[in-house]
């Protein structure tokens, strides 16, 4: 009789497993066979020049974009896989939605709801989607606001916040849904340089709490210091990936070297 440990019940299963993802916008091929596995608690940074397809790839994982072919599973559940003709076939709408709820997302442009206060932004989805009572979610929302250091902005409208504050609210909003994975799409790219620090600090804290995170970023410092693994994408392909320290200390590919040379 085997011992029942978490590992034997559920053999080490990737949080996200993407295989051979292809996607084109019209005649332009933006993803050419991307594969990625994200393990529980792992922080992976995706870097690369603009137009390399890194944001598109991230958006494919939670169905903001659809793929042409390939296979994506989230915690073992199939979101999309190829049919007999090699065309991507998605699972039914309700299933897509339930898989999507495993992932939270933080956008470059924040996408806070401007007509709702900070607190309302955070409690809206738990109330609508999880049918939680207001009284149950408000303490949790306040706790999250405390965590991102914005409890005093609880009743402010987003137009009263700085970019860095908006992004921290967006992170709290994503966390309020209790996701297993957080996707970040260039979370600091729209921010003034002096405001990126506060957002990166919040992300660093999440990493220390072993949140599973996939981060598309231009912040090389963050990638080096916080990520476990760094992936370099160019022209719709993964050129190179390695543990963060090794990646920056000793890049193997010519294209990676050229990119790092230009950005650092």
């Amino acid at each position, binding site marked *: 009789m085997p011992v029942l440990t978490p590992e034997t019940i559920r053999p080490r299963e990737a949080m996200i497993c993407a295989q051979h993802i292809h996607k084109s916008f019209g005649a332009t091929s933006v993803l050419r066979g991307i594969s990625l596995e994200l393990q529980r608690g792992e922080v992976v940074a995706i870097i690369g020049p603009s137009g390399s397809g890194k944001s598109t790839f991230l958006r494919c994982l939670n169905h903001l974009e659809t793929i042409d072919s390939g296979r994506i599973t989230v915690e073992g559940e199939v979101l999309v896989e190829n049919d007999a003709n090699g065309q991507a076939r998605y699972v039914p709408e309700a299933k897509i*939605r339930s898989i999507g709820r495993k992932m939270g*997302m933080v*956008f470059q442009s924040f*996408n806070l*709801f401007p*007509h709702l206060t900070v607190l309302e932004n955070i409690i809206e989805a738990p109330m*609508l*989607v999880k049918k939680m009572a207001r009284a149950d979610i408000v303490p949790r929302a306040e706790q999250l606001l405390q965590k991102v250091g914005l409890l005093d902005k609880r009743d402010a*409208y987003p137009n009263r916040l700085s970019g860095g504050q908006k992004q921290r609210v967006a992170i709290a909003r994503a966390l309020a849904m209790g996701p297993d994975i957080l996707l970040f799409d260039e979370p600091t790219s729209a921010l003034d340089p002096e405001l990126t620090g506060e957002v990166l600090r919040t992300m660093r804290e999440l990493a220390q709490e072993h949140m599973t995170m996939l981060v598309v970023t231009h912040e090389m410092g963050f990638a080096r210091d916080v990520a476990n693994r760094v992936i370099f994408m160019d022209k719709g392909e993964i050129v190179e990936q390695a543990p963060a320290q090794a990646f920056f200390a000793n890049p193997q590919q010519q294209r990676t070297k050229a990119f790092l040379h230009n950005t650092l």
Partner: protein
Amino acid sequence: MEYVISLLGPMWSGAQVTLKLFVITMLLSIPLGLALALVRISRLRSLSAAVGAYIWLMRGTPLMLQLLFIYFALPFVPVIGVRLPDFPSAVVAFALNYAAYFAEIFRAGIQSIDRGQYEGAKVLGLTYGQTMRRIILPQMWTRILPPVSNETITLVKDTSLIYVLALNDLLRVARGVVQRDFTFTPFIVAGCFYLGMTLILTWIFQYLERRHARFDA
């Protein structure tokens, strides 16, 4: 002055007809316009096209023609032919016509909302219906207040078209008195009534715009 005061009674009864048509038209055409706008932007291609054709028809022909058609011609149309009394005829024509204009305002308002709002809602797990109801439409109202205000003020004045159905609205009452007494004073009084009504509407919309401004980006 005494003459003006003596006019107020009959003018007020005319104004009541005007106001009644105005209020009922608003109550019917705004929900109908919203429904049309939502169908227009939906992925239901054929329904969307049908709404497009409807809007073209209602905006492309004179409201007066629509009024006359519903009152005089509709009874002779096969299948749907019904004979409506004069005031209900006017209500139907105005509601159908204004719904088309409101539908276009709403559509433009909905489509002016940033795509990021839909994406933000989607990644939080909201359904399309929840996204529309809780995220998109509340923001739409803020943006469409100025054009809706315009349309509403136009409606107050358009109500005077119902004279063609011999309904005694404010302007027709005034005209009757002008012809009886050989003086233009009733027209001036009627003008003041219209100005009063539109002033109140202007205040209401100013108040709404101010209230919405607190979260406007």
